[in-house]
């Protein structure tokens, strides 16, 4: 969806650049490069055209890329809000351009004419290109230019800014490249005349711009809607769980919370889980509550296991998966059929605290990790058929943790002595996943040599992604996988400050 919006924005920027040809500077450039140079100086003209184009591309990239970079300094997250602002700007500019409104605010400045006389033509044209590419140093010929600037800033995405900027630069260069080489001939002169005498062409281009901007606004608006819930609501907490446009999480001091389009609500319990149109949590008395909505008028409850406390849940339409910790120190992971609660599937047991990781459910498939000093394994089981398989296993160096399953997509964490990675891939081929977030390992590392001795041949002791000494301060924790967002818990040394961050995927 976002790539479609980006294509629409690129088209709008290209057309906005072309529309700039109807400005005083646009005409001047055609003439400067093409006028009466004749065949003798064709090479100079070709070079000037090339430098002008490069200058325009650079100028566009600087303006729109720079604005995007500035926007990124506002911080990550809140992609939905950013998309919504960008969509609103695009829509407003589209309306104004469609109606052909007078451009305001207008920049009544031109490029310095004297450069044409005091500099070699290619150099002067390069600088002219930069000024025109910058967009706001001379006349602005469509509202789209203003909108693109605002959208680049609001996006906070360098790629967005660069795409818009380069497309704008190409647009500024195209009319010059099209007409200037032919200016000495009749058809070239006719083209320039048509340009100068047909403002309807310019107005038509503004309407094309309006259509492209509207299309971009539509797609950005859709992205904003699906990007909910906003990240800032889930700022402090852990154990995220998401389904559709809702996100539930645990705040260790206050219990479960739920955020959805209707607002934020506190859940009367802990370890909230979402999935399959259901919400589940562990009530204060230890019993499990499952409901189809919240607040829940008629929730189902499942008694707490005897002599055990539940410390995590996962839920789907037909299944509930429970991790508990027995008083004897044995942890268990098992599934309960919601249709036939007496039907239970035992998944894992462990005498080692923390060995069984947090489960995640998608339909009838559940994933979890089991790790001890011998190996770390990521399992998947089909609760309907009983089939179980190993998705990933490592007997050394690596710890797998905190998987999340959504359809066929699999999110998981992989940690080694150097790095903590969050990877997104397919449960069918989990080893071929891409890293969407990487943090340095938290352990203190020495430089691989003792001070005072010859330091050499110790590269195998080093980590390329981090320095020696204390490591990072954040430990990755539980995750959730949404449609366009991965939610990841990050714990600082003060665990109460654990937070959930949104990573666009």
């Amino acid at each position, binding site marked *: 969806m976002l790539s479609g919006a980006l294509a629409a924005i690129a088209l709008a920027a290209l057309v906005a650049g072309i529309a700039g040809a109807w400005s005083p500077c646009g005409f001047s450039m055609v003439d400067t490069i093409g006028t009466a140079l004749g065949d003798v100086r064709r090479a100079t003209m070709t070079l000037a055209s090339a430098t002008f184009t490069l200058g325009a591309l650079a100028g566009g990239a600087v303006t729109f890329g720079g604005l995007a970079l500035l926007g990124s300094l506002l911080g990550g997250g809140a992609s939905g809000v950013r998309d919504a602002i960008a969509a609103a700007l695009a829509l407003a500019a589209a309306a104004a351009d469609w109606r052909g409104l007078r451009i305001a605010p207008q920049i009544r400045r031109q490029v310095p004419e004297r450069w044409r006389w005091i500099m070699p033509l290619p150099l002067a044209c390069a600088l002219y290109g930069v000024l025109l590419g910058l967009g706001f140093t001379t006349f602005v010929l469509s509202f789209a230019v203003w909108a693109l600037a605002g959208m680049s800033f609001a996006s906070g995405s360098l790629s967005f800014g660069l795409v818009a900027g380069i497309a704008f630069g190409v647009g500024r260069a195209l009319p010059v490249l099209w007409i200037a080489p032919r200016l000495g001939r009749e058809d070239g002169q006719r083209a320039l005349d048509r340009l100068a005498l047909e403002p309807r062409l310019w107005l038509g281009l503004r309407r094309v711009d309006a259509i492209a901007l509207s299309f971009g606004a539509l797609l950005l608006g859709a992205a904003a809607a699906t990007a909910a819930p906003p990240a800032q609501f889930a700022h402090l907490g852990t154990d995220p769980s998401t389904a559709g446009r809702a996100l539930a999480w645990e705040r260790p001091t206050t219990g479960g919370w739920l955020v959805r389009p209707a607002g934020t609500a506190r859940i009367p319990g802990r370890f909230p889980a979402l999935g399959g149109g259901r919400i589940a949590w562990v009530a204060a008395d230890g019993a499990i509550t499952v409901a189809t909505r919240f607040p829940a008028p008629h929730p189902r409850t499942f008694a707490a296991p005897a002599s055990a406390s539940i410390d995590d849940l996962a839920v789907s339409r037909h299944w509930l998966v429970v991790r508990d910790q027995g008083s004897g120190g044995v942890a268990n992971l098992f599934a309960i059929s919601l249709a036939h609660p007496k039907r239970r599937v035992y998944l894992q047991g462990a005498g080692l605290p923390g060995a069984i990781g947090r489960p995640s459910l998608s339909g009838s498939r559940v994933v979890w990790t089991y790790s001890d000093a011998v190996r770390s394994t990521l399992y998947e089981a089909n609760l309907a058929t009983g089939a179980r398989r190993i998705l990933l296993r490592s007997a050394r*160096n690596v710890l797998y943790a905190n998987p999340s399953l959504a359809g066929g997509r699999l999110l998981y964490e992989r940690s080694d002595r150097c790095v903590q990675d969050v990877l997104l891939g397919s449960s069918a081929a989990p080893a071929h996943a891409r890293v969407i977030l990487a943090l340095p390992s938290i352990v203190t590392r020495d430089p691989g040599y*003792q001070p005072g*001795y010859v330091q050499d041949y110790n590269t*195998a002791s080093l980590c390329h992604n981090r320095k020696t000494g204390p490591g990072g301060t954040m430990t990755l924790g539980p995750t959730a996988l949404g449609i366009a967002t991965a939610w990841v818990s990050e714990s600082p040394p003060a665990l109460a400050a654990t937070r959930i961050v949104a990573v666009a995927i």
Partner: protein
Amino acid sequence: MPSEDPQTRSLSDEVARSSNRRGFLERLGGAVIALAGAPVVAAALLPADAQAEAYTNFCGHTYTTGNCPAPTGLPRIDRNGYPLRASDGVPVDDLGRPVNSRDEPIDAQGRLLTDADGVPLAPAPRTRVCETAGHDYGIQLSLDGSWYRCCGGTVRRIRDCCGSTNVRINGDAALPGYCYPGRHVFCVTYFETTMPC
């Protein structure tokens, strides 16, 4: 920080290849270099234990074979070959986290590390440094012979991680070092004894 002359180092390594006992190697190397008329260089290259500056990377390690990859940097191991944090000898897992006797990750006070919910963090694999180096590089490796030197007031056991390989972790030719016959040093580790010296 002193550095070895590459030519001399190459000569020493060449000498080392012809031997599988470092004591003999030191004597032979010393003789060869001394005969070559470089007694000063020989003294620098083949130091007594007290001449710490001639060791590479850590006290007691002569010659140039690189460290085995270890979770926290320096390849300090316990007597069974499992990784320890070099600075204080605390056992660590393969991620470099300090662990208790059950291999559970712990904090500086010895308490179990937990997540924000209070649930203990998952243990991670804890494997022998030498064997894991072999796994990482696709070679079967094991700890063979040793040499002992006085380091920081205690006896340190330099343990060569050896295999049937002619290439060492540095990427160049492997030396026999303290390995069993027919095997060569791939990388080095050390074990700190409690024996004062």
